[in-house]
Every structure is written in structure tokens, then in C-alpha cells.
């Protein structure tokens, strides 16, 4: 399988050139040098090939061999992915640690999915069934509760000639046989898929169900739909990672794929240590039991960082194909773009903006296009939602990665340095952010909560933009110059900002808000506004409203009222009625 196909002629960092066979394929996986490091052919010209190497090339020599494999860079798919942590080219980090110790050395070769572990398998097809690519052949219990639907490779189809009886099998054991034309093919629970090729589906469906994240500023104000794509750009320390971790914890997806792409080791360790102890509010199972982690930290080889995004999205598509909702987090796509730039620079390609290759936009488009809510080949429906962090140099959103990303996403969560400095978290700027899914998901809210979410949400946004206009005036002349009605707006927006938008990811109660809690809080704040406005219009001085004890109660409600005790909001509403009622009575006469 691996014959020598070339001889190394040039080495610079992760990029190697070689001379040899003209039969090597573009994007073919190769083994490089005496240590047989993993690499991928990224350029061909005559008998010259250019290879990006997924491991550290120190010590490699010219004249050393390159071996072909005849296969493109692929991932292994099958039961056992969940709860795994892989590097960018799907090497299992725990096995690397077992074999090599605390530090990652070169030349690690391990199966991505265990060949020994047994899974409880139940067939869903019988002999004689005609099956097409993607067909569900059976199910394996991947965790105590997660049903892994074992599918036929999308490229295969035929007639079932043999089916393994229900039982415990490894991914290497045959579970069915298939007659494909003249050939008979043995099928196992394991399949390989080239990472750079999107897995096929029948067609896209409308994306009109929100991905509920439990984050108020996201769900209530800037929702992303299941199957949609969102970008979260922001300067360092503004909250990209915390927001993505929160989504990974609380999003109502069945599978989470989290890609730490060129970021910190400690952040991955944090997920690894925390997720097994956090309970998914929907299934009652540890969050780790729905999570796949890809960790190619900033100090790991840069070419594998480039691959990590594809490894992750392919795994996400695989679970989508089973009919699940998958949410994928990529932190940070900028580091991925930089990996492209670094490899491109070594190839002395003509740079476009800021040294990035001209194909940057195309690659970003390909990645975000792999999000979607689709009808699968096997008749199920599933989705992949993508949330990509962007790390613009100097926090300047006019740079190429942010700008191009904006073209391919429909939801933009703009983090703001000054909010972060004031410890307003999540530091998502409500005036710079947008969601193009608002109308799409409004029906879902109505059905789910029976309330006109969109109108309320828009009303709150209106007040916030009014606030922004008013604060310009306040900056010039002070608040006293404003009429009471306008100051009432400022009272309400303070409640919106501190009570609704601010959400502390580290506090147990506040970290996750159910949809019902979110809409109730929104309703309450708007109710406060209506009542207050009516009183102020009758001439009551604004400080009387400002000093109402209920103001403090509303601001604190996010962390004093749990998702299970929503009736407490009725009490708060009653407090508004009581306290405002008194004022109302005074100023009515």
C-alpha cells in the first residue's frame, strides 16, 4: 500500500518538496521521510510534488523517501467518536499520552477508533433488502443513551446478502454483506471519508428552528437557526471562547463537535475536566457523552491545524447523516486562516490581502457551506450548525478573515472590547451584531411559548438604539437635560442591559436560561417600561421610578430565579403592579 513515490528535495518548516512519480494524486495522503510522518500532497507540477506535513519536520533530510498511500486525507467514522479527543488529523490524544508521556512526539500512529471496543448492535435491515448509500443498516449504542445509526457508505449501494445477528461487535467485525453488481462487499461499522469532500445529502430544508443556546443575547436577540452559520469576532479577551464553551454546554443539539484550532492547551483541558461533570439538562447525562473534541493547540503543528477544521466538520456531517442536530464550534477560524497563510507563504504563492492567499475567501465559503439543515440520503433530517470564532488582529473587523467570513454567515455576534473592559459579559455589542434568521424562527417561538417573541424583541432593540442616540446627548449635556420620558427609556435599557443582556457564564443559575425564562424576562422588562412611561407622562419625576425597589429585583432575577421557578416572575410582576400602582394613583389625581 505504501510504495516510495518520491525523494525529498527541499524542506522549509511544514512544507516539503519532492521529486518522483507522476502518479501521485493531488491531496493524496503520503508518509514523509524515514520517520514516515503524515503529510498531504498540496501541489503537483511535472514530477515535482509539494507536501504539507502534519508533524514537526526538524531533523528531516533531503534525499529521504516519500511513500504514497493512494488515499486522500480521511477520517475514520463509526461508534467511539463521542467522548474522544483528537488532534487535527484525528489522532487520539489519550493514546498518544499513554504511549509517549506528557509531551507529543513525532511519528505517533494510532487507530482513531478503537478496534477492540465492543458495541451493542441491532440490525435494521434483512437479507434481500435493496439499500442505497447512507441507508441505516442498524444501530449501535454509543453511550448508554445515544443511538449510533450505522449507515452504508454514501458511495455504495446494493442488495443485502447477509446480516449479522444482534450482538456485541467491534468496528472491525462484519455486520452485513452487500451484493454490489458482481462483487460482494463486507460492511463493518467503520467507514472512512475524505475530509475535504462534503458528505452528500438530498437537499437543504428551510432553517426555521432556532439553535437554543440558553444565552439570552443569542437566543432572544440574535438567534442562529439549526443548520445555520454564525461568526463571533472579537479582540483578545473579549469572550469568544467563553461564549463558545457556553454554547457547547447548553445548546440543544444532540452532538457537539468542538474544534480548538490553534488556541490554548489549558482551554481544551478545561473542557476535558469540566464536561464529564456537567449534566445535559435535556438528557440528564454528562455533557461529555455528546461531545467530540478536536484539539490542535497553537503550539502543535500548523498544517494539522489547517486540517483540524475539516476533520471536525466531517465528523459533524456524519452525525447529521444519522438524523441528528449537530453544533460545531471552531475556535478560532483565524488561526486556521493563518495556517493557510503560513503554508502559502512557504510556497511563495502570490499573496492577496495581508499576506493571505487569494483562495482564502473560497476556503471560508466551502467551510461555512457545509452547515445546513438537510434531508439525508436515508430519509432522516439532520443539521450541522457552525459557530466560528474570528480573531481579528488589533480587534479591527475590516481585516480579510472577518470581512470574508461575513459574506458566508447569516448571524454576526460582534464582541466589543469596551464592554469586556467594563466586565459587561457576554461582551456582544447589540448595535453591531445581527441575525438574518429572525423572521425564520419567529414561528417556532410562537408555537413554543405562545408569545409574540419577535415583536417584543424588536421593541427591546428599538429601546436600545434609542438609548444609544440619547447617550450621545447625555455625553454632551448630562442626563438632566433630557425630558422624563426619555430618561424612562434609559431606566428601561439599563434593565435590559444589566438584567437581560449580561449573563454570567460562571454562575450556576445564570449560565443557562431556558426559552421560557428568557421570554418571561423580556416580557417583564417591557411591562415595566409601559407602566413606567405612563406614570412619567403624567408628570411623575423619574427618580421615583429609578428608586423603586423592584428595579433591583428585576436586575437580580437572572440569578435569583431558576429555570424551574418561573412562577417567581409573577411575583415580580406583582411587585411592579404594587409599586407602580401607588405612583400611578398619586399622579393620576
Amino acid at each position, binding site marked *: 500500500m505504501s510504495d516510495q513515490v518520491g525523494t525529498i*528535495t*527541499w*524542506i*522549509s*518548516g511544514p512544507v516539503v518538496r519532492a521529486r518522483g512519480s507522476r502518479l501521485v494524486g493531488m491531496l493524496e495522503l503520503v508518509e514523509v521521510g524515514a520517520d514516515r510522518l503524515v503529510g498531504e500532497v498540496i501541489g503537483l507540477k511535472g514530477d515535482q510534488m509539494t507536501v504539507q506535513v502534519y508533524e514537526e*519536520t*526538524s*531533523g*528531516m*533530510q*533531503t534525499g529521504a523517501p516519500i511513500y504514497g498511500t493512494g488515499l486522500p486525507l480521511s477520517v475514520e467514522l463509526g461508534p467511539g467518536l463521542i467522548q474522544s*479527543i483528537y488532534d487535527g488529523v484525528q489522532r487520539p*490524544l489519550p493514546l*498518544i499520552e499513554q504511549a509517549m*508521556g*506528557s*509531551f*507529543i*512526539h513525532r511519528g505517533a500512529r494510532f487507530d482513531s477508533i478503537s478496534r477492540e471496543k465492543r458495541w451493542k448492535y441491532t440490525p435494521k435491515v434483512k437479507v434481500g433488502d435493496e439499500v442505497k448509500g447512507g441507508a441505516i443498516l442498524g444501530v449501535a449504542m454509543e453511550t448508554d443513551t445515544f443511538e449510533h445509526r450505522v449507515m452504508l457508505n454514501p458511495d455504495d449501494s446494493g442488495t443485502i446478502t447477509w446480516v449479522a445477528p444482534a450482538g456485541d461487535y467491534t468496528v472491525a467485525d462484519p455486520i452485513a454483506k452487500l451484493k454490489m453488481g458482481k462483487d460482494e462487499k463486507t460492511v463493518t461499522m467503520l467507514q472512512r471519508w475524505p475530509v475535504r469532500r462534503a458528505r452528500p445529502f438530498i437537499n437543504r430544508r428551510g432553517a426555521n428552528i432556532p439553535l437554543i443556546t440558553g444565552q439570552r443575547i443569542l437566543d432572544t436577540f440574535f438567534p442562529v437557526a439549526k443548520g445555520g452559520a454564525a461568526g463571533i469576532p472579537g479582540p*483578545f*479577551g473579549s469572550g469568544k471562547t467563553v461564549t463558545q464553551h457556553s454554547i457547547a454546554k447548553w445548546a440543544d443539539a444532540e452532538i457537539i463537535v468542538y474544534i*480548538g484550532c490553534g488556541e*490554548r*492547551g*489549558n482551554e481544551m*483541558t*478545561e473542557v*476535558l*475536566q469540566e464536561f464529564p461533570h456537567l449534566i445535559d439538562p435535556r438528557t440528564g447525562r454528562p455533557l461529555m457523552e455528546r461531545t467530540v473534541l478536536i484539539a490542535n*493547540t*497553537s*503550539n*502543535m503543528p*500548523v498544517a494539522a491545524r489547517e486540517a483540524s477544521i475539516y476533520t471536525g466538520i466531517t465528523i459533524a456531517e456524519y452525525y447529521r447523516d444519522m438524523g441528528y442536530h449537530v453544533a460545531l464550534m471552531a475556535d478560532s477560524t483565524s488561526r486556521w486562516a*493563518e495556517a493557510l*497563510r503560513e503554508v502559502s*507563504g512557504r510556497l*511563495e504563492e502570490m*499573496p492577496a490581502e495581508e*499576506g493571505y492567499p487569494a483562495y482564502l475567501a473560497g476556503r471560508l465559503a466551502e467551510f461555512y457551506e457545509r452547515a445546513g439543515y438537510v434531508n439525508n440520503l436515508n430519509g432522516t433530517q439532520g443539521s450541522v450548525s457552525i459557530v466560528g470564532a474570528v480573531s481579528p*488582529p*488589533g*480587534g*479591527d473587523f475590516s481585516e480579510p478573515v472577518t470581512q470574508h467570513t461575513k459574506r458566508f454567515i447569516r448571524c454576526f455576534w460582534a464582541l466589543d472590547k469596551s464592554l*469586556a*473592559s*467594563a*466586565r459587561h459579559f457576554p461582551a456582544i455589542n447589540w448595535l453591531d451584531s445581527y441575525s438574518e434568521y429572525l423572521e425564520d424562527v419567529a414561528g417556532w417561538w410562537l408555537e413554543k411559548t405562545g408569545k409574540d417573541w419577535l415583536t417584543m424583541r424588536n421593541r427591546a432593540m428599538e429601546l436600545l438604539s434609542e438609548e444609544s442616540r440619547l447617550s450621545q446627548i*447625555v*455625553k*454632551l*449635556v*448630562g442626563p*438632566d437635560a433630557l425630558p422624563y420620558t426619555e430618561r424612562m427609556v434609559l431606566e428601561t435599557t439599563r434593565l435590559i442591559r*444589566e438584567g437581560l443582556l449580561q449573563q*454570567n457564564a460562571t454562575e450556576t443559575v445564570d449560565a443557562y436560561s431556558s426559552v421560557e425564562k428568557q421570554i418571561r424576562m423580556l416580557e417583564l422588562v417591557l411591562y415595566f417600561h409601559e407602566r413606567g412611561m405612563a406614570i412619567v407622562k403624567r408628570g411623575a419625576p423619574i427618580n421615583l421610578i429609578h*428608586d423603586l425597589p423592584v428595579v*433591583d429585583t428585576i*436586575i*437580580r432575577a437572572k440569578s435569583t430565579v431558576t429555570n424551574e421557578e418561573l412562577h417567581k416572575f409573577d411575583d415580580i410582576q406583582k411587585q411592579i403592579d404594587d409599586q407602580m400602582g401607588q405612583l400611578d394613583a398619586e399622579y393620576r389625581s
Partner: protein
Amino acid sequence: MSEVTVQGGQEVVGVARIEGPILVVEGAANVSYDEVVEIQDSRGQLRRGRVLEVGEGFAVVQVFAGSTGLSIDGTRVRFLGSTLHIPVAEEMLGRIFDGLGNPIDGGPEPLTDHYADVNGQPINPTARIYPRDYIQTGISTIDGVNTLLRGQKLPLFSGAGMPHDQLAAQIVRQATLGKVAGAPQTEGEEFAIVFAAMGVKNDVADYFRRSFTESGALTRVAMFLNLADDPPVERIVTPRAALTLAEYLAYERDMHVLVVLTDMTNYGEALRQISNVRGEVPSRKGYPGYLYSDLASMYERTGRIRTSKGSITQIPILTMPNDDITHPMPDLTGYITEGQIVLGRELNFAGVYPPVAVLPSLSRLMKDGIGKNRTREDHPRWGAQLYAAYAKTQDVRALASVIGEEELSDVDQKYLKFGRAFEREFVNQSFTENRTIERTLEIGWKLLSMLPRKELTRVTLDEIAQYYKGDDAAN
């Protein structure tokens, strides 16, 4: 050009091209990428270098000491066959080395057969222990609102003429393992200190040496010095050599190591210089596109691993050109490190020491090292409240500058007073003042008590009942 093979590696006589600190050597076979070379000039003087690129029959070599005095025909290049390694040993504490790890204190070469690759290896994320133990530095702006943990990387972003060296020295001198607020202060475990200087003036290195001597720490310090008049290219190696020793001490000798790297901005300039000479496509401000990965390869060598009791905590110091935090060096550093302590010009002018600009400063790991059973239960919310109040102070100040202080509302007036007191009493402390965490929390509550109770929405009502001492405490 001719090739001679001598013991310990092949040797090439003569080079094809010299450009800045870069040599192109032709006629060498089987050169390894990244291997070390020894370069001999025509007078027999030796210097070292490293292979940056290899092709068929040629190698591109970076000379650490620069190429001054090297000639095309008179230069001999010997390829040593392995990447750059330095000796590592516990006895290196108390010693002074040059930027490549050679002793310059007149003492002998470290006696050890333990040599380690200066590039290190990435820590497997599964092998890490997430940092949770806080380090008490005795400085309120750090312990209180930007808590430093063992195994964290927390840089100081400063500017020319600001007291970052004093602050770093104070941290090093006072650092002990943190205790729960109110617990008796016992002698903490001592830190080993690895200090690396890149392109700083001799008096800076001297300042640190004196400071270590005075605090009696000198025997626990290893210094790696590449000073302003030392070859710039050597700076590429200096922090790596220092971290290589730190890794050995932490992960093989179970020590808690504090690494101070100063000044990373000079490091960045050296990297830029080499990149420019090689004609690489620059990204921002002439810095190479791989600056992020390059910095990460050092900053990520911080942390704790499960197989050892030790830890590496990093405090890199960066002077921001023009005090510009968006300059690529602080910017990319901030994207890698776990927060930053930013020094502010205005506070410094106002005579506040340490002039820590609290708002842009951040410790990301703080949340995991404070609170109940670590410092005190109210600490996280107390910190958020101080931040929020001080941020509000900035708005009030801006407003006051337009409409005048007298026109401010009562509440805003109180914010102004709070802001001044915060800078004078909380931020400001003397170079020798070592505050306990309890004291820091107490000062904070005293300041918060200057504000109306209703303004404190970040702390709980219970905490207000317990600690708030303001005029309207009763309501």
C-alpha cells in the same frame, strides 16, 4: 567550495551567499532541517547557527551571532547533525548564562549529561492539569482583580519609561502560594526563578540581579542574558533556552518555576529582521505571518502536567511601541496568554505605583482560582463589582469634563470620589507593601461602601449585608 568530512559532522568550506545574519551554504549533502551548525571564520573564531531551509545541495543557515566578519571563502560551516540542545541541571539555579545558554559568570559548564532540545515539545492537552492554585503576589491589582495562578501565562504590557521592571521584581519577591483569606501566613513553598533578558540594557539586567540578591533569591535564580549589545539573532534562542531549563525544573524536579521574559518586543524585532532578510511575505507591520505560532511555541510552554508536582508560570514583559496595544507584539501575545496586566501612562504620571490600568487588564484563569475555599466566597462578585464601578467612573469623568463636576448628579459625584479613592488606595501601594488577600478585599469593600447601595448589583444582597458599610447600609 569544497567539502571535508570531519569528526562530528560534515564540514563545508566557503559559503555561496551572505545576507544579514543568513548564510547560504552549497555543496552539503544530507543536511537536516533545523540542525545546528558551527561556523568558523577565517581567524578560527567559532559561532553557532541553525538550518532554516534545506534544498538539493544547499542549506540556508541563520547565524546567531550575526555574520559580521564572515567571508565567502574564509568561512567553514560544520553541520552538527542535531537540533539545538542545552544542558539542564538543578545546579543551574544561581548561575548566569548568555543568550544561548553558555555560562558567563566565570563558573564551570553545568555538570550534567542531561541535554534538552531548546524547541521543546508540545504538551498533550490530555496531560495537563488545569491551573487552580492562586499565587499571592501581595499586589491588590493582581491578587484582587487579576489573580495569577500557578501554571498561568500572564504578561505585563508596558511602555518605555514605566516601572514594569519594578513590578516584575516585586511579584517575584513577594510571590507565595495563596491561602484562604484570613488563614495564617506561613512560609510558602519557594519559587525557582528563570529569568531571560532579550535585548535589554545592562542596567535592567543589573536591576534584577540586585533585586534578586537583596531578597536572598539569587541562589534560586537562573539568568539567561542577551543584552542590547549582544547579537540580535541570538534572541531567538534565549527565551527557548530559559524555558527548556524551566521545563526540566518543573516537570522533572517538581519545582514551581516562575519565568520572567523581558523584553519580548525585542524578541519580535529579531524575528522580523530575519524574516525580512529572507524576503518572506510579511503580514502586519513587517512581522512574519507565523509570528502567532512562533510566540505560542514559547508561551504555551507554561502550565502543569499530571506526572509532576511542579508548575511553570510565565510573566513575559512587553514594551508596547507607542503604547499601542494593537501593535502585533502585544496583540498576538494577548491572543495567546491567559490575560494581561496593562500599565497605564496616565496613572504613572499621577504617581500611582504600580500604575496598573485595571480596565484593560484581565486574568482569564482568575475565576478558577478564587472564591469559596480558595480566597473568599464574595471575591468573584466583589471583583466584578469593582470593575463595573470603576468603568462607570470613566463615563462620569468624561461627562464631568463636559458639563463640569458641580453639574453631576449626587450619584455621579460619588462615583468620581470612588474613582479617585480606588486609584489612590487600591491601585496604589508601595514597592515594598505586601498585602494579604484579606486586606485587599477589605480595601475594596471600603471603596464600594462609598457608593449608594443600589448601585451594587453585581454582589449579592447577603454580601452587602455582611460587608457593605455605606451610609445607606441600613435600607
